[in-house]
């Protein structure tokens, strides 16, 4: 790890003055050195300082469990990191769009959310930008044709635009253009925390409410020297794994549906709801709304409730085992899953993929294991990986995780520590500080970085949803595939539009 950066643990606070301010050259060199040594970019973002923009980088070192933070001042432009470090590509596009700081030499500089820069005015100044209008990559030649899909899709799903460059059925290239879900979350968090902040977090990606609300709570706790009591931390772990169970089960069912394997599709459709209803048993909301709050958890699992949850979990798991066993035991399904949508381990590493998509390429990336916080410091959930990088691997990793999450919840429910579930409110946030909070959501790494100003208000709140890292993985998975396999590949990644667009 480079010597010049500040080292932090997940969920730790540092004073802003202790974050090294490097020259762009050092910043660049240190980052590359960290990445070469196995680190990866968890966050890279701009923050306005005076007339200029300060870049902050958070690198995650899975081997040591440390996060390193450094910064550098960029003017209106700076030399792009992307040519040397592909995983910076989407971050640099974001920085250019948000702050008008141009990464010189970036090979693919296009908008990612289609809004005007925040520096020097409001995003509305100069009128709206037409979403989705950009210069798409085009392949030309005999028999080449282009297929454009979206923003509005056939199913009940969120909007995004996809452009395929095809030769017959074969896809040469897929370009993904997002931004239709942009609601201005990061901008609205500045000046907070306010009454709306936690709700923006719970709806940043509504199927990931628990993970985002937990990351936010951790960040706020770090900044206010507050901690969740032990019982609250266990409840957070249970909530997080219930969220994973529901979504993974739903995705396995949908993967079945995409290859026309209807029994599992319909069984899992119901079972997903059963898991959501377990979350509702705990907190009244199927999506865990209101359960996670700074200081701990807002709803307890008293003994009878914990017992009911445990019993219903067992029943649901027995049915999930049956439904998934049928799916992954059917040769006709395997023929469609195997060797479809392959991403190599090398590409996954270069792009900085996270979560299920990374683990399905054999990468041992899991915040619960690498950067444990809360209950995951005490109890370890084994990391689930598979080597083949295809649709099958992404299904198989989900199935492994379902079993391990259920075992974890069952274990925790019978050993809930006594005591309060939430700590007393804190006076306010420490001024001029920075905190990083990472949570392994069901899609992968959720990373929040919070900066406070001299008055202890949020000066910048950077949210990185796992989808931010992974959309490019989907684009790569489609290379040389049949265009008809797009729905299957897409579902196997199951990425968030709103989590990306914020």
């Amino acid at each position, binding site marked *: 790890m480079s010597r010049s950066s500040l080292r932090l643990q997940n969920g730790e606070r540092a004073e802003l003055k202790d974050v090294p301010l490097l020259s762009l050259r050092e910043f660049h060199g240190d980052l590359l050195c960290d990445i070469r040594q196995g680190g990866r970019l968890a966050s890279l973002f701009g923050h306005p300082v005076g007339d200029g923009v300060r870049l902050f980088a958070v690198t995650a070192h899975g081997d040591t469990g440390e996060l390193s933070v450094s910064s550098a001042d960029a003017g209106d432009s700076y030399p792009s990191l992307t040519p040397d470090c592909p995983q910076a590509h989407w971050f640099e596009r974001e920085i250019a769009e948000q702050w008008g700081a141009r990464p010189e030499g970036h090979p693919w500089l296009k908008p990612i959310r289609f809004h005007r820069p925040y520096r020097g005015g409001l995003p509305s100044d100069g009128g709206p930008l037409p979403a989705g209008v950009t210069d798409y990559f085009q392949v030309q030649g005999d028999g080449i044709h282009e297929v454009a899909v979206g923003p509005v899709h056939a199913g009940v799903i969120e909007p995004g635009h996809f452009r395929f460059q095809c030769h017959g059925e074969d896809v040469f290239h897929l370009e993904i253009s997002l931004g*239709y879900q942009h*609601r201005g979350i990061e901008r609205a968090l500045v000046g907070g925390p306010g009454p709306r902040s936690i709700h923006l977090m719970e709806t940043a990606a509504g199927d990931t409410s628990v993970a985002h609300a937990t990351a936010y709570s951790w960040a706020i706790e770090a900044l206010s020297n507050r901690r969740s009591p032990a019982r609250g931390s266990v409840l957070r772990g249970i909530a997080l794994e219930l969220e994973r169970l529901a979504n993974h089960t739903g995705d396995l069912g949908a993967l079945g549906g995409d290859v026309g394997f209807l029994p599992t599709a319909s069984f899992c459709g*119901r079972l997903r709801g059963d898991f959501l209803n377990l979350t509702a048993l705990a907190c009244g909301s199927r999506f865990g709304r209101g359960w996670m709050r700074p200081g701990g958890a807002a709803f307890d699992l008293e003994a009878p409730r914990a017992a009911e949850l445990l019993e219903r979990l067992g029943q649901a798991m027995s049915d999930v085992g049956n439904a998934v066993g049928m799916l992954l035991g059917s040769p006709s399904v395997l023929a469609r899953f195997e060797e479809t949508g392959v991403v190599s381990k090398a590409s996954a590493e270069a792009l900085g993929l996270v979560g299920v998509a990374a683990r399905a390429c054999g990468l041992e990336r899991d915040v619960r294991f690498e950067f444990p916080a809360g209950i995951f410091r005490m109890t370890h959930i084994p990391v689930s990986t598979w080597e083949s990088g295809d649709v099958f691997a992404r299904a198989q990793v989900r199935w492994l995780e379902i079993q391990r999450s259920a075992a974890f919840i069952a274990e925790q429910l019978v050993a809930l520590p006594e005591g309060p579930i939430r700590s007393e409110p804190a006076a306010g946030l420490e001024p001029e500080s920075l905190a990083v909070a990472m949570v392994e959501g069901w899609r992968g790494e959720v990373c929040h970085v919070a900066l406070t100003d001299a008055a202890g208000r949020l000066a910048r709140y950077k949210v990185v949803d796992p989808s931010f890292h992974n959309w490019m993985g989907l684009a790569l998975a489609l290379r040389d595939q049949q265009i008809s396999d797009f729905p299957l590949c897409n579902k196997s990644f199951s990425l968030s539009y709103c989590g990306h667009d914020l």
Partner: protein
Amino acid sequence: MLRALAARLKQGQRTLSYPKGTPTLPDRFRGRPETDFSRCDAGCAARLKDCPTGAVVETDGHRRLDLGRCLFCADCAAACPHGAVRFTAEHKLAAWSREDLVLPGTEPKIRPDDPKFRKIARSLQIRVVSAGGCNACEADINVLSTIVFDLSRFGISVVASPRHADALIVAGPVPRNMRLALEKTYRALPAPRIVIAVGACAISGGPYAGHEEVCGGAAAVVPVDLYIPGCPPHPLTILDGLLKLTGRL
């Protein structure tokens, strides 16, 4: 084949008998709030500002709760020492006008007598557009098509093409970046068109109300016929709304 049959037996019959029998919702479920603002004292005004969406509004000295903005977080119920707001387990929340969502309100209204509602009594085809939805409203609309709710037994189905649709469901606060797509989808429906706003975001902008990145809900772009509040509304709340629309409830 035998395996599939055995699995089918194990998984059992799962479709709810709704609307004949209503399943019990969890005790912590937050449905329609009951309000009694006559209990408020002078100190209460200060607490109003803590509602994340400004759903508790005060006009001419009268306090009211706007279900169209409410996120059902129950922070107000927890903060109020006088019990002015209490959340009940009532899942039926759909309303025909924006005013009907403001509590304490008048008696629930019946469906307006518009010929366009008559043609969908036996068959309602819906196109859903997510416009800034966080995927929670979308998920709880999707779940209606599973075996648990089995939407198609009511003659209602979700269709892929707006050309095949009688009604449009909008979820989300409608980001400016989605405005054009929503307008175009709406115009692609054959007239007369029905629009349903599902969730706090689509009704009022929800937690995004006032953000300049969004239009602040469906009604800013298309005329809305039915409002289904919640964040997200429970699937039964949505189903109740759809059955009211077809005249079955």
